[in-house]
């Protein structure tokens, strides 16, 4: 199965929600839409589902143009950030509701609901009402309702965002397993880069109504095609600075410079943007490719065995994320070390330099 968007766009009241987008999603892999809130993930999903009609462009499913087909006949399921269940039906009836609409036999319904409830570990709660369940259980019910019919397209709109950390971890583990055997196109929207990396599959990064890059998750992470993609796919935020290439030296300021090296020897001299991920900025020198950066600490957050140090340097706010506990006072002057062997260079058009 495959879902294809061809030059799909969406305008609402003269405002562009989605710029013309081409995307081809296949069954068998987790397709992730990664972007901040208001980047257009939900709108794009509603277009895929058929809840919204595209302003222009076409949507094809399995080689069939479904652009004008209403959502009811498309065989779609969707799970939302809020826990959407029918309040006065039991859990069993909630899960069974799509099958009832499809006029399935009672015995078949029982079978199917039982099976899916077991996979999602809610078999003991079938007689209860959603309001008697915890948030995580309610979301499991909503998921079971989405999975109980053989949908061709399953859409998850930040389904774990309203759950607490532990439940999130549990469901994150289970989800890929549940989908591994299904022949349906699965799309999963999230704001968290770590979630995308955990699920693997393919990722489309979104920014202000545009898909900036689509490919294997790991590849998009390691080879972001633009500064925007790199920024969307970095949490904590990507550290950036303007750098000048002068001969065989990259130079941010008189104090901060480093040799260009073999890889980028061929690119012309001029102004570039350098991007360094927070976990490549250390409180101590780790290797020869580290360069020293003077900074003023804004705040240092310690969470368990990790330290996140926010500091200002060269007119920018930077973040360092490192293992171990590193204590700093606010306004403390310090030296941190950036690993320039692991950084991205973007040209004047904010495109990645691939040398």
């Amino acid at each position, binding site marked *: 199965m495959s879902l294809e968007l061809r030059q799909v766009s969406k305008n609402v009241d003269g405002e562009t929600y989605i710029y013309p987008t081409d995307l081809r999603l296949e069954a068998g892999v987790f397709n992730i839409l990664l972007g901040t809130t208001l980047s257009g993930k939900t709108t794009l999903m509603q277009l895929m589902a058929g809840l919204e009609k595209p302003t222009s462009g076409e949507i094809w499913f399995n080689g069939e143009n479904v652009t004008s087909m209403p959502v*009811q006949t498309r065989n779609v399921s969707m799970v939302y950030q809020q826990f959407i269940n029918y*309040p006065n039906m039991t859990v069993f009836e909630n899960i069974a509701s799509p099958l009832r*609409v499809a006029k399935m036999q009672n015995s078949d319904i029982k079978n199917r609901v039982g099976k899916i409830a077991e996979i999602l570990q809610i078999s003991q709660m079938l007689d209860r009402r959603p309001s008697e369940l915890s948030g995580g259980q309610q979301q499991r019910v909503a998921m079971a309702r989405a999975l109980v019919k053989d949908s061709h397209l399953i859409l998850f709109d930040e389904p774990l965002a309203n759950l607490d950390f532990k439940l999130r971890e549990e469901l994150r583990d289970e989800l890929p397993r549940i989908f591994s055997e299904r022949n349906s196109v699965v799309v999963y929207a999230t704001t968290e880069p770590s979630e995308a990396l955990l699920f693997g599959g393919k990722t489309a990064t979104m920014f202000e109504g545009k898909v900036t890059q689509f490919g294997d998750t790991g590849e998009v992470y390691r080879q972001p095609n633009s500064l925007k993609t790199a920024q969307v796919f970095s949490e904590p935020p990507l550290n950036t600075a303007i750098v000048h290439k002068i001969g065989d030296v990259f130079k941010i300021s008189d104090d901060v410079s480093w040799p260009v090296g073999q890889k980028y020897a061929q690119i012309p001299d001029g102004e570039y943007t350098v991007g360094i991920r927070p976990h490549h900025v250390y409180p101590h020198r780790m290797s020869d490719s580290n360069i020293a950066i003077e900074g003023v600490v804004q705040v240092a957050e310690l969470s368990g065995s990790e330290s996140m140090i926010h500091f200002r340097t060269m007119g920018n706010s930077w973040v360092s994320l490192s293992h171990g506990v590193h204590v700093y006072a606010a306004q403390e002057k310090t030296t941190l070390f950036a690993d320039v062997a692991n950084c991205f260079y973007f040209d004047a058009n904010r495109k990645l330099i691939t040398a």
Partner: protein
Amino acid sequence: MNKTVNQKAWFLVLPVLLLVAFNAIIPLMTVVNYSVQETFGDNNFFWAGVLWFEEILRSERFHASLGRQLFFTFSILAIEIPLGVIIALAMPRKGVWVSVCLVLMAMPLLIPWNVVGAMWNIFALPDIGLLGNMLNGMGIDYNFTRQPVAAWATLLAMDVWHWTSLVVLLAYAGLVSIPDAYYQAAKIDGASSWAIFRYIQLPKMKRVLTIAILLRFMDSFNIYTEPFVLTGGGPGNSTTLLSIDLVKIALGQFDLGPAAAMSLIYFLVILLLSWVFYTLMMRNEE
């Protein structure tokens, strides 16, 4: 936890205590006092026990006005609740018309009750009233001052006009609190608009509708001003509701004992019915 002991804090409760005492408790106790005694004026009271209660409970006049009261209350509930829900469903959810609709809906609620009665009285007069004259012009023999059926129809129409808005506003508040995602989920499931109403909107409105029914029940059971101004209980006794009858006994005939006994019975009936209703509605909650 150590509790801070501050006896002066009791004084902070005093204003409310006084207010409630003078507003509710003392008048109620006075009524209780009257209901078990006989008086012939001059502040001479004689113990009467439960005599008045027995008399009222056996009185056919009381049965008749209680019957009319129940008929009135259940009629307006049967009309106003569904009508209010239908209007709330038809109202726009966003856009400029929302505020227009809300203001229009709130209008009848702002009009003083005796003005509503007077308005409808003039409106329905058969010779000069817009409604009365029009109905007669259409060949319908209508005269609410003489025909019991016409009087009842006018009375019910007036209450529906005055109070349906309250149900609309409450139901509307319940409706707009439903997240869009519910409607989308229902659409994806292929649910019909009846199913959406039955399984999403109605359950989500349950709480506000419970409040609406309770408020309308209690208010309509206590209603006095509007029917008094409109029909004065007539023609004959045909629209004499409990409250009108009570005032007739207490102030018209100055039978303080029976009137007090009747007030208490009246009060207990409202309390009992409200409690039964609320318990039934909230049985499945939690």
